[in-house]
């Protein structure tokens, strides 16, 4: 095709640069592997620079995309309407039930002095770009560092979680979708509370990996974010479990292809600091306590030779000074008391009330 004007001009001078460029390309791959953020700042700057143009360009594409999606749905509008009415009636019942349960949970939390759930703030952003490449599925939002967006934050729409921010520019941010090859999200499958990792593989429904042995998972179970790792908030709705023959996948609630406005959730998980150690947790010398009493002497002095080996460790103890009060057993009793009290059934306290 179009090769009629070709004339052989091959020059062997190209071979050497090609070899050098090949080595350079391999070097870029290796450096990129070692430093994964090699291109990130450049990408963020390019996207920031393109943001105003993208907003304008994206509108007709959104319109075409929506029109294309609606075209297929136009045929079953009546049936869909009937189905949605039935579903709406069912969901109203569930809503009433959920409100009742929510009130009950709040009462229980008050009674138990439970730590309240961390407050979530969010930034509303508009989708100004989408890209689907073989090795990356992403969307670009018109909110960046200026709006408080940081990499790692969850992105949700009205239906559920879409993905998380992986690159934040000044005015724009890139979102890695849950279905992307590089996406890994810790999730919980309810009602069995099975822990799993939601693994994207560029398929429409991401896979559920590393399910614990014996975990009970059924088709139709709900998948929510677990919050493990403290980056994503727990409880974000993600999807429902579907079986694919080889294992389980998750039919996502959100549809990134049609989402126009999304929320970037800012989750500040309070860092759990370990409690200050009590003197009992510290080594004897650091706690300023008198050294531990040596083990009581064997009752029978005429023990056989084999038992002497059991008492042998006591040979290390004499290096420490001998305590003046040999009996320290009573000091151990109060420490055991709390464990004993928690083991008791709460029937007594209930009776007292």
């Amino acid at each position, binding site marked *: *095709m179009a090769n009629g*004007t*070709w004339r052989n001009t091959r020059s062997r001078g190209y071979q050497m*640069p090609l070899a050098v*460029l090949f080595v350079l390309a391999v070097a870029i*791959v290796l450096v990129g592997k070692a430093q994964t953020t090699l291109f990130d700042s450049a990408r963020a700057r390019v996207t920031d620079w393109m943001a105003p143009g993208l907003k304008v360009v994206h509108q007709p594409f959104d319109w075409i995309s929506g029109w294309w999606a609606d075209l297929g749905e136009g045929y079953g509008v009546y049936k869909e309407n009937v189905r949605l009415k039935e579903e709406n009636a069912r969901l109203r019942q569930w809503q009433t039930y959920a409100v009742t349960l929510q009130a009950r949970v709040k009462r229980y939390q008050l009674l138990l002095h439970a730590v309240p759930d961390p407050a979530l703030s969010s930034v509303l952003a508009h989708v100004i770009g989408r890209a*689907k490449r073989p090795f990356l599925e992403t969307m670009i939002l018109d909110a960046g560092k200026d709006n408080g967006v940081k990499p790692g934050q969850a992105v949700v729409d009205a239906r559920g979680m879409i993905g998380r921010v992986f690159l934040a520019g000044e005015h724009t941010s890139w979102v890695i979708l849950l279905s992307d090859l590089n996406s890994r999200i810790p999730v919980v499958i309810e009602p069995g509370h099975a822990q799993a990792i939601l693994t994207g593989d*560029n398929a429409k429904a991401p896979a559920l990996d590393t399910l614990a042995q014996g975990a009970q998972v059924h088709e139709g179970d709900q998948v929510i974010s677990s919050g493990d790792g403290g980056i994503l908030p727990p409880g974000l709705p993600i999807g429902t479990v579907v079986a694919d023959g080889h294992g389980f996948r998750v039919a996502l609630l959100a549809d990134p292809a049609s989402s126009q406005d999304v929320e970037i959730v800012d989750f500040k998980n309070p860092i759990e600091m370990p409690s200050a150690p009590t003197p009992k947790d510290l080594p004897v010398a650091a706690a300023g306590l008198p050294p531990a009493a040596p083990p009581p002497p064997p009752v029978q002095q005429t023990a056989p030779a084999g038992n002497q080996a059991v008492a042998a460790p006591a040979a290390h103890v004499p290096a420490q000074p001998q305590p003046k009060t040999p009996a320290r057993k009573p000091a151990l009793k109060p420490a055991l008391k709390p464990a004993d009290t928690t083991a008791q059934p709460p029937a007594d306290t209930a009776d007292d009330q």
Partner: protein
Amino acid sequence: MDRTSSFMASRILAAVVPVTLALLGTLIANLPVSFLGGIVPAPLLGLMPIYFWCLVRPDLMPPFWAFAVGLLEDMLSGGPAGVWTFAFIVTYALIDRQRDAFAGLSGLGAILGFATAAAVACASAYAVEALWYWRVPPLAPVMGELAMSVIFYVPIAMFLGGVHRRLVGPLRSDF
């Protein structure tokens, strides 16, 4: 004097057009706008001018520009660094080695020639991606990109042929 300046202008234009089209194709292919709801992946628009002029006028498409276009593809596509740079250089090497075989093709053969080059590019990118993440990525997205690239090559090769005839032209003995 006018003839000389006109000659120089046409020479500069001829040198600039192939590379510009390759960079422009990469930019367009990586525009983050999803046509048809993202059902179809974007074709490798940057590879088409590289393939075309590497056969027709390799003096205007040296390997450095294949490297640069691959680097731009990497930067804009958001994927791992160096994947497409490596893929484009490997593809260029193939075209360069087999230029006689590729250049003799016409019609459907020319499309199959590009399909071979695009398959090498996609396979190289797939292999690097697999090594990068140390697992086997799904094949379907790469196959989709390959199919779209081959389909799009038909009209774009006609466009590139027109541009070549009007703006670039064949190699002259006095160049």
